[in-house]
């Protein structure tokens, strides 16, 4: 058994850069490259694509990325693990299998991990009378939204990935497994860990480290408060983890790449998008982020020790996506002098136009761009005459036709509005998907794995 694993973080979101992942495969001597593509909203978008065309629903980047990455990964002996299967892992895996054949990589084993999609069983869940309370809002009546629901996916644990690796997969294509399982899976597989008490703290360590690196450049200088000090961020290196079998780890990156790994880049991401830091709940376990010791060893190497946690939870998070009307948006900019006064008058004028157009909206929101758009009520008003100020309006409506009225009303201000106003290109209405997060018993989930051979 290996004493240490090398894992790379190859993607932090759908749309992330590909060149750092290429560099990791070329120079990283990695055992695994883990790639996260999904966010809360993504599953609803992908499920919609699948409903329109059953051969779609995986992340479109999957095939373009694999065309570049597969030959390099096969050459380096690196296994790729991703959730790019999205709402249709099987279709994604079939595409990647065909691609591997085209590339002459016959024999490549592509694993499909399924079992996170609860849409086919949603009615069964509703009828069974499970408490499906919305974790965010406390709302209880999910059934009332039934005819608007487009997706229902459970954040699953790494057992499907582990099983795929046991079967010799070269590429693992999963759907809505937790981002974190992309890292926990290979570690549990290689070190032979199970969910018994013996391994609880070590699994918690893998969860902690997975959390720290899963957003790729976010641990190597991206998003940093010290961004202005970060070298060559345009050719940033993505993080590498050296994970030890005793449950400690080092985070680093390739020499010569941009960005930095230091005490603060790691701390900044440890605290990112979490709840109670002493109970970071993942399907594979619960990590206590209040115990980890972070030791900056210099030269882009940060050592993580003393990681601990608790056994995996019995309930898993299910995210239900539903159609929730439309958003219409508009934006315009006013020049000095008296830009703020012009913005205020334009806002008033838009309000009158909305009335004249008979706008039916459930919410109307205005921002003064350059003043309070990002910090809202926390923002002070300028005590000088600014060079320019923008006005942004966003409106929630039931129908697309109502949302179109925003575009129309904003365009009407081209001549009806204040002199000197700049409008840019009008924005199209966009559909809204609501997200209903709830918990369901683990017993509902059974992941399946199938190997497709190129």
């Amino acid at each position, binding site marked *: 058994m290996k004493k240490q694993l090398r894992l790379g973080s190859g993607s932090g979101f759908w749309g992330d850069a590909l060149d750092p992942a290429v560099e990791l495969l070329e120079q990283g001597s990695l055992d695994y490259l883990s790639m996260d593509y999904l966010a809360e909203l993504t599953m609803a978008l992908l499920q919609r694509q699948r409903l329109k065309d059953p051969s779609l629903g995986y992340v479109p980047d999957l095939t373009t990325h694999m065309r570049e990455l597969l030959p390099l990964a096969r050459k380096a002996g690196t296994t790729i693990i991703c959730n790019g299967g999205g709402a249709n892992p099987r279709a994604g895996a079939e595409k990647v299998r065909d691609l591997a054949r085209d590339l002459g990589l016959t024999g490549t084993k592509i694993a499909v991990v399924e079992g996170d999609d609860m849409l086919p069983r949603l009615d069964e869940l509703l009828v069974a009378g499970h408490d499906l309370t919305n974790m965010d809002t406390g709302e209880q009546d999910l059934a009332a939204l039934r005819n608007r629901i487009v997706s229902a996916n459970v954040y699953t644990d790494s057992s499907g990935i582990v099983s795929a690796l046991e079967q010799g997969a070269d590429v693992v294509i999963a759907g809505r497994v937790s981002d974190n399982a992309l890292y926990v899976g290979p570690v549990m597989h290689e070190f032979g860990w199970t969910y018994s008490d013996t391994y609880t703290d070590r699994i918690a360590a893998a969860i902690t480290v997975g959390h720290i690196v899963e957003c790729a450049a976010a641990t190597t200088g991206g998003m940093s408060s010290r961004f202005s000090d970060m070298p060559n961020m345009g050719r940033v290196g993505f993080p590498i983890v050296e994970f030890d079998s005793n449950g400690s780890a080092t985070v680093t990156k390739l020499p010569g790449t941009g960005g930095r790994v230091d005490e603060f880049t790691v701390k900044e991401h440890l*605290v990112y998008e979490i709840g109670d830091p002493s109970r970071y709940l993942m399907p594979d376990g619960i990590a206590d982020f209040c115990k980890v010791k972070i030791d900056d060893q210099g030269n882009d190497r940060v050592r993580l020790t003393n990681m601990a946690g608790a056994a995996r939870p019995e309930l898993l998070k299910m995210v239900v996506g539903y159609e929730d009307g439309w958003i219409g948006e508009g934006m315009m900019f006013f020049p000095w002098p008296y830009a703020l006064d012009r913005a205020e008058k334009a806002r008033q004028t838009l309000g009158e136009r909305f009335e004249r157009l008979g706008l039916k909206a459930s919410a109307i929101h205005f921002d003064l761009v350059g003043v309070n758009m990002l*910090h*809202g009520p926390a923002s002070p008003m300028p005590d000088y005459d600014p060079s320019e100020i923008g006005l942004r309006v966003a409106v929630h409506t039931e129908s697309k036709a109502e949302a179109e009225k925003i575009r129309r009303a904003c365009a009407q201000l081209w001549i009806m509005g204040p002199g000197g106003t700049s409008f840019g290109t009008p924005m199209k209405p966009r559909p809204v998907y609501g997200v209903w997060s709830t918990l369901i018993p683990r017993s509902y989930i059974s992941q399946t794995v199938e190997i497709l051979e190129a």
Partner: protein
Amino acid sequence: MTLLRDIAYVRSGDKGDVVSVGVIAKHPEDYSALLRSLTAPAVKDLFGDWITGAVEIYPMDNIDAVVVIMRGALGGGATRTLRLDQTGKAMGNGLLRLPVIKE
């Protein structure tokens, strides 16, 4: 007046309609000032009607940081909010406007 901007780094993001902010002391000796300054009432007062739920404060002694959880703070969550900052990425920096409370 010293602001949190002067003593802390920050990173923020979303989970549903919750904005989660990690505030990290630049120097260990400033951690106690972070704890004094980042109180739930101070945070609610700063963002006013942008926060409709509770604010929770979680100290992390091991890394001289504080996690601030703001519930009902994203205008309905990333997918539904009418704000431009759909995931609350900028709100963490907003917290740095708070004054540092002296001992």
